[in-house]
């Protein structure tokens, strides 16, 4: 059984302009000890998916349907009190902007200790030790002194390490990292990705890494789910996906990534057009209006996810399945 099994997740928002179908029937699973990438551009629903798993969306405006099974238990059926116990204890989360997710008026130590005291029934004398050990684990130099400091006294990279410490201090089995390195410089990004890898190796934590950066996907993940317009459009082992993408959107995205070793001409492959308005009902393939190969059939019939090769599924009428000998 998978650690996390998301089945046909739908998250819709009520807005003034109509119902925004931010996530429209997404299914995926995360196995123990693996890193899954969810990749896509702004508005594709990747962050809403993670917020739905954590049930952090405002319940009066957002409605989630489907199943989110964590060790077989559907998180959507839990009461708010039960859910509070899941957050932090069983699923940890790191957000993109460490400055706005840390409390500016509490010391870093107090915030880590609060998390431990709230979720773990350990003697209060041990809480401090546990917090200190966690900060050392995430590579905070001089951790004992840093515990007495406030978030504004730390650099962006250090703050993100504190966020990781907060997310992992209760040893959750699953860590959701939502664009954890997007706000960081490349040399610091390399440090944080290395840290996540080390922690996973030591503690066997499963990670969902949500990102728009295919470079990060390539460096840090085992399997990748590509999302477009609230739907999963392709899924494969990361190496396979990057080497032989089957969906035209994934192909376009990969071609558009600037790589070192350019020719200085300034030309990059581009995907024309923009993502569709998620408040309007969609017929046919969501990518059809930007797809160079789209046919009338594509515009009329939404493609289903089909197996194109072992472990490789894609939602495209035009991607022929690999013929197996």
């Amino acid at each position, binding site marked *: 059984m998978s650690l996390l099994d998301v089945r046909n997740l739908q998250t819709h928002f009520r807005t003034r302009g109509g119902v925004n179908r931010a996530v429209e029937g997404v299914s995926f699973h995360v196995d123990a000890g693996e890193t899954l990438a969810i990749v896509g*551009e*702004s508005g594709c629903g990747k962050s809403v998916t993670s917020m739905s798993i954590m049930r952090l969306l405002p319940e009066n405006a957002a409605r989630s349907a489907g199943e989110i099974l964590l060790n077989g238990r559907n998180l959507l059926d839990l009461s708010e009190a039960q859910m509070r116990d899941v957050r932090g204890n069983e699923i940890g989360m790191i957000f993109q902007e460490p400055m706005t997710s840390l409390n500016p008026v509490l010391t870093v130590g107090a915030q880590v200790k609060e998390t431990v005291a709230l979720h773990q029934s350990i003697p209060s004398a041990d809480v401090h030790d546990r917090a200190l050990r966690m900060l050392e684990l995430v590579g905070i130099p001089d951790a004992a002194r840093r515990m007495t400091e406030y978030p504004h006294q730390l*650099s*962006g*990279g*250090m703050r993100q390490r504190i966020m990781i410490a907060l997310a992992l201090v209760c040893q959750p089995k699953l860590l959701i990292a939502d664009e954890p390195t997007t706000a960081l*410089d*490349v*040399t*610091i*990004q*390399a*440090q944080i*990705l*290395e840290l996540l890898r080390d922690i996973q190796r030591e503690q066997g934590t499963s990670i969902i890494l949500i990102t*728009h*950066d*295919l*470079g*990060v*996907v*390539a*460096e840090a993940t085992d399997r990748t789910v590509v999302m477009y317009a609230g739907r999963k459009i392709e899924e494969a082992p990361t*190496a396979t996906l*990057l*080497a032989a993408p089957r969906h035209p959107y994934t192909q*376009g*995205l*990969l071609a*558009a*990534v*600037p*790589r*070192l*070793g*350019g*020719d*200085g*001409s*300034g*030309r*990059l*492959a*581009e*995907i*024309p057009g*923009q993502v569709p308005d998620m408040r309007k009902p969609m017929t046919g393939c969501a990518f059809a209006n930007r797809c160079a190969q789209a046919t009338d059939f594509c515009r009329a019939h939404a493609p289903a996810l089909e197996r194109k090769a072992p472990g490789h599924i894609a939602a495209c009428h035009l991607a022929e399945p690999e013929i197996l000998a």
Partner: protein
Amino acid sequence: MTPLLSVRGLSKEYEVGRSLFGKTTKTVKAVQDVSFDIAKGETLSLVGESGCGKSTVGRAIAGLHAATVGEVLLDGRSIADTPSAGWHSRVQVVFQDPFSSLNPRMRVRDIIAEPLTNFGSTRAKTEARVKELIDLVRLPRDAGDRFPHEFSGGQRQRIGIARALAPKPELVICDEAVSALDVSVKAQIVNLLADLRAELGLALLFISHDLAIVDHITDRVAVMYLGRIVEIGTRDDLFGAPVHPYTRALLSAVPVVDPGQRRDRIVLQGELPSPLSPPSGCAFRTRCPLAEPGCAGNVPALTDVGPGRQVACPVVTRTTADVN
């Protein structure tokens, strides 16, 4: 031949922290002794991590703030001796955030027309020019009547570019102009900038932390670390054979998309030091894998290591000299 833009010994200090009686207690040296040229139609990229001073250099050139020391010259004429309208009509900026750099209460037509009106263009001329610009940046024809919020991030950045191009500048400073955009849209805007550069013969100062984008668009590159240029050279030289240990680490930290193309990664230890109290001597020595005791002494000067190629690291220049 005089280059289009010359920056000579540019330094910029900010005063931070004041005592009770208004006396300045600390200064941040955001930029120190930066010099470079940009020729007509050439693209120079300033790269480095946050806080390295690259945007401060851009702002000084744009005339948005004055340099503490040093000169900025356009065709040999200093910014200090040029009336501001004259300067701004030749040097324009495209900013990073297409959401906060456009006035939400103005129609796109008026946003693009504003620099023209400011520089005294007549109404009829302005109208014609705005139409021309909307076509030039490939916005839909009816864009002029709409407001910024009706556009996506990429479209807004096109509006920002149209506004910058309105007074027919010779130099456009792109300050992280594509950093906030999604991959597929980023490619559209980079292509647009490349086309415009070719069509209009623009010189670009491309300020970015994204080395892969820089590699696609630039002629020359200057790498900055904590307020100083540590390496400068042509794109082929600098990306092909980086010399300064910081440049090498920066290049090796760029994630590689293609499987089987992994490079050896140099993961730098430690953090960027605070510009309030930079390390003595070479500012990079606290994170440098090659640092020697001697690096704490003098600030290393930029030394020539080839045609148009300079590096500020005595350790590597000494060892390469040994090899040759």
